[in-house]
């Protein structure tokens, strides 16, 4: 590790990747064509030499051309994650989506305590560490934001706290 300079280490992580770039090019090409097509539905106002659709079209053209270029001449990608890493990333995203959706119905503290313990686990903490530091992190953040910075966070709906409702 120490023998490899950062520039070389980065080189090793890069791969010529025709599939990734072509896929990205195709998706972006569809986006560009879709944006072009959809822009015609914007109603041009009265007395406007340049309507609301012109600028998106002006951007969609180079985007389409460049995406086509990407499909024809794909370049380098960083190494894509392996299956285990992908699993962890998906788990974190799913966890965070659930966290976001429960934040208001259940209140900040309970959701964040559970969320941060699981998050610490996913980032590689042992259960013991995760439990201790997760609870501490959640309560610390609550204290910092609610009292330190004075930002109201969603309360637990069935609990009335003495400092809530200000």
């Amino acid at each position, binding site marked *: *590790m*120490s023998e490899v*300079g*950062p*520039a*070389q280490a980065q*080189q090793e992580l*890069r791969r010529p990747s025709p599939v990734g770039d072509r896929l*990205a090019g195709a998706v972006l090409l569809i*986006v*560009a064509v879709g*944006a072009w097509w959809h822009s015609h539905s*914007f109603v041009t*106002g009265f007395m*406007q*030499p*340049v*309507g*609301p659709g012109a*600028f*998106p079209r*002006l*951007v*969609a053209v*180079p*985007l389409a051309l*460049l995406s086509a*270029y*990407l499909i024809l001449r794909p*370049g*380098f990608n*960083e190494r*894509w*994650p392996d299956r285990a*890493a992908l699993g*962890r*990333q998906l788990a*974190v*995203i799913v966890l*965070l*989506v659930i966290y*976001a*959706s429960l*934040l208001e119905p259940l209140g900040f503290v309970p959701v964040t305590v559970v*969320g*941060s313990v699981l*998050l*610490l686990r*996913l*980032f*590689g*903490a042992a259960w013991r560490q995760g439990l201790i*530091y997760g609870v501490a*992190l959640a309560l610390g*953040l609550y204290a910092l*934001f609610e009292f330190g*910075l*004075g*930002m109201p*966070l969603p309360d637990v709906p069935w609990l009335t706290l003495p400092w809530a409702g200000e």
Partner: protein
Amino acid sequence: METLAFLAHGFAVATQPEFLLLALIGCTVGTLIGALPGLGPVNGVALMIPLAFNFGLEPTAALILLVSVYYGCMYGGRISSIVLNIPGDEPAMMTTLDGYPMALKGRGGEALGLSAVASFVGATFATIGLTLFAPLLVQVAIKFGPAEYFALFMLAFATIGGVTSGSFAKSFIAACLGLLLGTVGIDPVSSVARYTFGAFELYDGIDFIVALVGLFAVSECLVFLERRHDADKPHIQLGSAWPGMKASLSCKGTIGRGSVIGFIAGVLPGAGASLGSFLSYMLEKRWLGKKGDFGNGDPRGVAAPEAGNNAAAGGALIPMLSLGIPGSGTTAILLALLLSMNITPGPLLFEQQPDMVWGLVAALFIGNIMLLVLNVPLVGLFARVLQAPSWFLMPMVVLIAFVGVYSLNNSPFDLYMMLGFGVLGYVLRKLEIPTVPVVLGLLLGGQMEFNLRRAMSISGGDWSLLWSSGISVGIYAFAVSMIVAGAVYAMLLKRRLGLHS
């Protein structure tokens, strides 16, 4: 002389106790964020923006806080470069080349002290440059009309595309994507909803703060998840940082040259700090020739890039403040902050809000001194933070991002949007499509379109107005030359890397 009077007034603003405290907090937090591997100025400032917002800071205070974080990050980046051989942020990459070998020889403390002084000189030099050159640029910019501004935006994209990545096509794709995302929402001129597909949350457009935190902070955490375990962190005896102060005297030529080169790289839109440190390291190596021992722990190999990247960070503020065109990712985020506080940087800012501009400049001078004081005696403390386990730091970053973004509008929709941008940012990074032009596009798109349409309504739809004035032709010519320079630079870089492997 007029400038001096303004600056004196600025010091009167910046020395108010509240602003001094904010600068100190910003410098400390910035150094910490910069020191942590993986979190650089872009992520750090992105993370701090929602907090500054929710805290209800007035614009001057918020700007002082965030710019202190920015300068602090530039100082902090070197710490993990030297101690762990992992650049704390991208501009600190060149510092690993000689900083880590110095640490292995037991001269880590000296390297940290020396780099703190080099950072201080570079940043101070750039701040003086900002004081002198920004008002001059403003006098030119005051003559700009909508057509010239449109040209200026084109220049920003041309240059940021030229330097930020190896592939032109990819950085222009990123810019177009950002511009397209910027058109989402109600069109301010005609009140037509564009690309909202009926989702009323999108009517206000995509909040760039939400996008920023997602693209930079959340995607960084996803990158981190690829590695399961903490890398072994070597314990190195650092020693005192004081000898570095003395060593910096013998490197004064190096520091001076590094500062000048870095400053020039910073002022050029789109170049930024990474190029500043790269160029000052490479040119210093060439300059010293056989007299240097670069790559094996030569102190000058630490001084040059650190002076360079800090000078570039200061230089990048010039186009941001005087033209409203950010030169780097971090200044783009600072611009986002100003725009969301309804402040448009540019020549008018200097006329209408001199308190803010000059207070900020004075705060930069003060912040630099604070950073030097923080970074010489207390550097051991910062180095210890690096031992904190990443399984704790990364979840903390995620949760701070969550709370900060949620508190903006108290809306879970923003959180989903942030996660979406996090995934987008991650995929783009894997594809080696740079994310900075996306942010720039999202940020400048509205202004760019507005100026285009204003120019068209002046000319009655005649597109040739765009290139009818001398200034705009000059800007386009400069843009083209920047693209050519970028291509040459990329070619040289490729040849260089090719020789090494």
